[in-house]
């Protein structure tokens, strides 16, 4: 019996394969997006953690100094004093000829044993070659494989020490081993070299960047005491933690986006499953006639959903793995741009993620099929009139759903107001609000349609169209919800990205107060550590005719909040007028003197958020001469550094001791009406003869570079938005087809009464249009709300960035048109089918 049921039930797959495939597509896309984002996230995370671990090795602590490094003699002193579980490190980024950034770790292989050593990479290093032939470097095995570079190939590296040609050493070749098996594809992401090579490559002669230390608990205090004032002993965990947290925030953002796509896919599944039941009402009724019980019908619908779920999830998983390859590059690039140079060695499908996605995909398919299955089981006989009752019930549900939505909305608002759960709480609130809004939609739609019907009383065709929609609320509402959700997400993201972009642009305009900048010629990621001679000032003024010179230098310093980024400036006189100050302890005009004369600093908005610092608080910072407490005079807006920056004047910085040589950049302000082009030429001519490689850049160039990074960061967001819209389009297409199939008899009747095929087409397209307009209009408040939430709650929690809310009307308008267009487009196929249908069978079809 059950075999018969199943055969009868699945016959439809052969008869209308294309429509049935729609069911699968929903599952496939939903599963693929979620899996792809998860895999991309995990792979990027893995690469990030690996890089961090490789860099830190087995050290428990690190001895750190100023950003420019510290005297290598200190390491010798440490060793001489008997601290032998120590290893000197010279490290930094470098750029490959193809423009990608790598991370170079310079080690003393003989001191490495207790640290990175033995485990994998350096343990296999041909020590002899690295040590006796400076200029040799060990690229990660994976990179060598992918780039096709041979052992002993030469490669140009661009780092703080300028452009230099290194000789690549392939571990396997150097050790004359045929079994590269030992490298399990996770060859690391660091480029390891001897410390002598790294000092030249990274412009660190005579200096070290850090010393790795392995300490027992009792030794920590002893060593900390023994360190000179400018050096600091820092536990390994505290390093990279800020970057780790931020990268995590970024990933949570992506995961949330992917879940949104899945949610929309769930609507799609519900729609297509409902459609599946509808199409086969006759089959069901006949089955019932031959004595098949409700339970069997219920079972067969769920069984089909299970099959669809399983097949769709499997295919979705395959697609997801493929999609992840695209996404992972994006994620890794973002992590590299903002946090740390990582090289993703490949996408690794994790069994757990696959299992979770499988449960999610199959579970969602089943859950979405529950209502249609129940509906199918209620079909009594071929003459049954379940439909009308169903729709009455649907309207009843709409009211209940509306009630539930109020609860959800209130919960979401409560979560936002209390701020509970931080970032995750923000996302939960977002989803509560979305869910609440979406649940409200059927009720609103019902009333809207009723209102419309009343409004067009007397106009036959539109009235028929609207009444028909209203009577099939169980079909039209979910489809509309899916479209609304997708459009709202598009609007929300547009609001967020647009506001963010606008704020960043405005901030760049304010922050870049000089007409020309002279910066070290190093890759962007290495620029923070690179320095130019301070005594260039006079020459730069002479060559450019500048009226004012500012300098700025970034460095990592130790503070009572762990390692923080410190920006030391010797600013233009009027700099405070341009600083986007958000809060301050005193009037703007008084801050300049206090910053120069007192131990005082300003901090950026993200810094204040991450470290919970308010104006008037004190920060303990290690500056030349030792540790001092600095009062936070104010908070200013800055998008340059997501982990936050402390800003200090050179006067305050150098008060207690001799600051390190060099400055990170010069800012030149030209007299009004001066010819910038000419100044650039003069400067470049002079710079060409100097020992230090430097570039002249204009604010425009910097803005361009910054915005390019910004756009790269959000490229993946746009990609997800597009996928979401595709899913929504399929959902509305499926829903409209279902709707029109159901109305086949109605249309046949109208045709019999003299309505031309063109009239039918118009009717169907009108219905699509009504749903599209409704979805688009409903999406505007929801989208703006989502955008506000993303800006004010989620981005603040994740990055500590505040931004001015901008309403990107153009994008909103585009999205609305897109929604209506999609609905109309989705009506085309059903319209064409309805217009062409054969009347007699349709008239005889069960309503």
């Amino acid at each position: 019996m059950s075999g018969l049921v199943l055969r009868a039930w699945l016959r439809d797959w052969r008869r209308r394969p294309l429509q049935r495939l729609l069911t699968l597509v929903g599952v496939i896309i939903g599963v693929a997006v979620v899996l792809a984002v998860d895999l991309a996230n995990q792979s990027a995370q893995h690469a990030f953690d690996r890089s961090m671990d490789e860099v830190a090795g087995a050290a428990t602590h690190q001895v750190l100094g100023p950003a420019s490094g510290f005297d290598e003699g200190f390491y010798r002193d440490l060793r001489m004093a008997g601290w032998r579980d120590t290893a000197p490190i010279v490290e930094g980024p470098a750029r490959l000829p193809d423009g990608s950034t790598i991370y170079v770790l310079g080690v003393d292989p003989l001191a490495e044993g207790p640290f990175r050593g033995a485990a994998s990479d350096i343990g296999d290093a041909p020590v002899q070659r690295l040590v006796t032939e400076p200029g040799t470097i060990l690229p990660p095995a994976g990179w060598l494989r992918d780039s096709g570079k041979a052992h002993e190939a030469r490669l140009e590296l661009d780092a703080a020490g300028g452009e230099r040609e290194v000789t690549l050493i392939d571990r396997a070749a150097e050790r004359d081993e045929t079994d590269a098996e030992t490298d399990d594809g996770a060859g690391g992401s660091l480029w390891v070299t001897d410390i002598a090579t790294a000092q030249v490559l990274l412009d660190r002669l005579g200096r070290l960047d850090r010393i790795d230390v392995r300490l027992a608990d009792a030794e920590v205090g002893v060593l900390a005491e023994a360190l000179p004032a400018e050096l600091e002993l820092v536990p390994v965990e505290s390093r990279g933690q800020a970057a780790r947290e931020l990268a995590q925030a970024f990933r949570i953002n992506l995961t949330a986006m992917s879940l949104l796509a899945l949610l929309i896919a769930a609507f799609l599944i519900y729609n297509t499953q409902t459609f599946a039941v509808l199409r086969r009402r006759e089959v069901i009724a006949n089955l019932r006639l031959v004595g098949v019980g409700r339970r069997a019908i219920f079972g067969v619908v769920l069984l089909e959903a299970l099959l669809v779920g399983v097949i769709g999830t499997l295919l979705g998983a395959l697609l997801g793995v493929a999609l992840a390859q695209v996404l992972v590059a994006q994620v890794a690039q973002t992590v590299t741009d903002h946090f740390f140079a990582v090289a993703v060695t490949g996408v690794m499908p994790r069994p757990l993620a696959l299992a979770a996605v499988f449960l999610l995909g199959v579970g969602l398919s089943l859950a979405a099929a529950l209502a249609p299955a129940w509906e199918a089981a209620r079909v009594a006989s071929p003459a049954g009139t379940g439909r009308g009752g169903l729709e009455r019930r649907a309207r009843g549900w709409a009211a209940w759903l509306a009630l539930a939505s109020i609860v959800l909305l209130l919960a979401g608002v409560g979560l936002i107001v209390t701020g509970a759960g931080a970032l995750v709480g923000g996302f939960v609130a977002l989803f509560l609000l979305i869910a609440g809004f979406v649940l409200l939609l059927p009720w609103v739609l019902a009333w809207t349609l009723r209102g419309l019907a009343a409004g067009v009383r007397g106009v036959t065709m539109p009235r028929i169209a609207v009444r028909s929609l209203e009577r099939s609320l169980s079909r039209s509402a979910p489809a509309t919800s899916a479209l609304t959700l997708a459009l709202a997400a598009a609007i929300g993201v547009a609001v967020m990205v647009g506001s963010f972009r606008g704020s960043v642009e405005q901030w760049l305009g304010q922050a870049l107060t000089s007409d020309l900048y002279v910066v070290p010629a190093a890759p962007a990621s290495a620029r923070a550590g690179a320095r130019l001679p301070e005594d260039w000032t006079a020459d730069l003024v002479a060559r450019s005719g500048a009226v004012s010179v500012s300098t700025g230098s970034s460095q990592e310093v130790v503070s009572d909040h762990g390692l923080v980024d410190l920006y030391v400036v010797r600013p233009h006189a009027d700099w405070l007028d341009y600083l986007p100050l958000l809060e301050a302890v005193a009037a703007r005009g008084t801050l300049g003197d206090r910053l120069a004369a007192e131990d005082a600093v300003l901090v950026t908005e993200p810094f204040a958020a991450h470290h919970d610092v308010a104006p008037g608080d004190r920060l303990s910072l290690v500056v030349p001469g030792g540790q001092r407490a600095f009062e936070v005079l104010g908070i200013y807006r800055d998008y340059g550094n997501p982990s936050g920056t402390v800003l200090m004047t050179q006067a305050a910085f150098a008060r207690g001791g001799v600051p390190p040589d060099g400055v990170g950049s010069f800012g030149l302000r030209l007299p009004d009406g001066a010819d910038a082009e000419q100044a650039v030429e003069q400067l470049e001519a002079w710079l060409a003869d100097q020992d230090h490689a430097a570039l002249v850049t204009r604010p425009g160039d910097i803005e361009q570079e910054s915005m390019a990074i910004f756009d790269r960061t959000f490229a993946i967001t746009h990609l997800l938005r597009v996928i979401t819209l595709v899913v929504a389009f399929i959902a509305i297409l499926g829903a409209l087809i279902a709707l029109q199939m159901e109305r086949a008899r109605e249309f046949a009747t109208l045709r019999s009464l003299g309505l031309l095929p063109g009239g039918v087409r118009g009717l169907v397209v009108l219905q699509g249009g009504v749903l599209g307009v409704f979805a688009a209009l409903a999406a505007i408040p929801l989208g703006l709300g989502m955008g506000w939430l993303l800006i004010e709650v989620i981005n603040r929690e994740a990055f500590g960035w505040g931004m001015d809310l901008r309403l990107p009307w153009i994008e909103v308008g585009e999205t609305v048109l897109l929604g209506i267009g999609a609905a109309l487009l989705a009506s085309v196929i059903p319209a064409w089918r309805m217009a062409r249908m054969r009347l007699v069978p349709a008239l005889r079809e069960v309503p």
Partner: protein
Amino acid sequence: MLLVGLLAACGGAEPPERADAEVTGLRVSEALGGEDTTGFRRADAPRAFEFPRDHGPHPGFRNEWWYLTGNLDGPEGERFAFHVTFFRVGLAPALAGDTAWHASAWASPDLWMVHTAVLDRDAGFHASAERFVRDGGGLAGATEPVGRVWAEDWELAGLEGERWTLRFTVEDYVLSLELEPAREPVLQGEAGLSQKGPEPGDASYYYSMPRIAVAGEVRRASGVALDVTGQAWMDREWSTSALAEDQAGWDWFALQLDDGLDVMYYQLRRLDGEAHALSKGRWMPADAGDALLEPEQVQLEPTRYATQPSGNRYPVEWSLRIEPPGGGPVREWTVVAVREEQEMDTVVRYWEGAVDILDADGEPVGRGFVELTGYEDG
């Protein structure tokens, strides 16, 4: 002495499972075992020795070492002994590649392997330590022309003068010693050129400082410092050579008799267990010129063996019979380890220990040091 051969012998061996820190050592020892001598200077002709200059380094040779052993007495009859070897290894004759890369102070083709050991007989304590340090960054080196040899805080200094200082640690023991050579340097082999193989250049420059007065301090792990005095012995050798392949190891003796006689003898053991024809030594009486000791003049028989904590088994007592090269009565001694367990717990294991010299009546007539290699795995 002769550590180079030890390392060469180990080069092809399967590295055993060891702790992390020692892995570095093993890799280094593999590097040391390299056969490539291209570009290095060779000990291929007699040379004029000049002191104190030759206490300083001789760059360009692949290997060079400063090897010191000594027996010490505490204020209340406590018995100590020590062993230190500063071993310079040229990984390459010079830095390779573009000189633009050579600017770093860390850039050097040399590395240092240093072994230290201390015996505290009355505390029942013997321990050894090992360091691998790169020559560069001021971490280790030998000052030119002569002065100091160091690896981090282990140091032999003052070589340019009459009194030297030696400072090193073994676990928690700290030894600070003043060394005053009591005898002129003795050139080994033929006027300091010690032939190790059939080819010219398969030789080393080799001299000994067989008698050095020592005074100083041994600080025990407890923190208690004892004043000590005694006698030390220094061997200096530099070369770029490999040893013959038919050698299983060697037994090396540095003996200081109470009557002022010093004797050095090394017996190379062939794989078949026989003494190698290249075995030799030196007879250094207090009141006459020194002379070469040939294997025919020496009978050396192990009479007792002991198993070390590592499981390796070494002889710890020998009967030694020597016909003095210049004539005179045959000398017969029993050489006994002060403590049976004096194996070096280093990457390449060997036994390096203080010994007593007994006459036919069993009376002590001198002290010395013995090095035994090639006894691993039974």
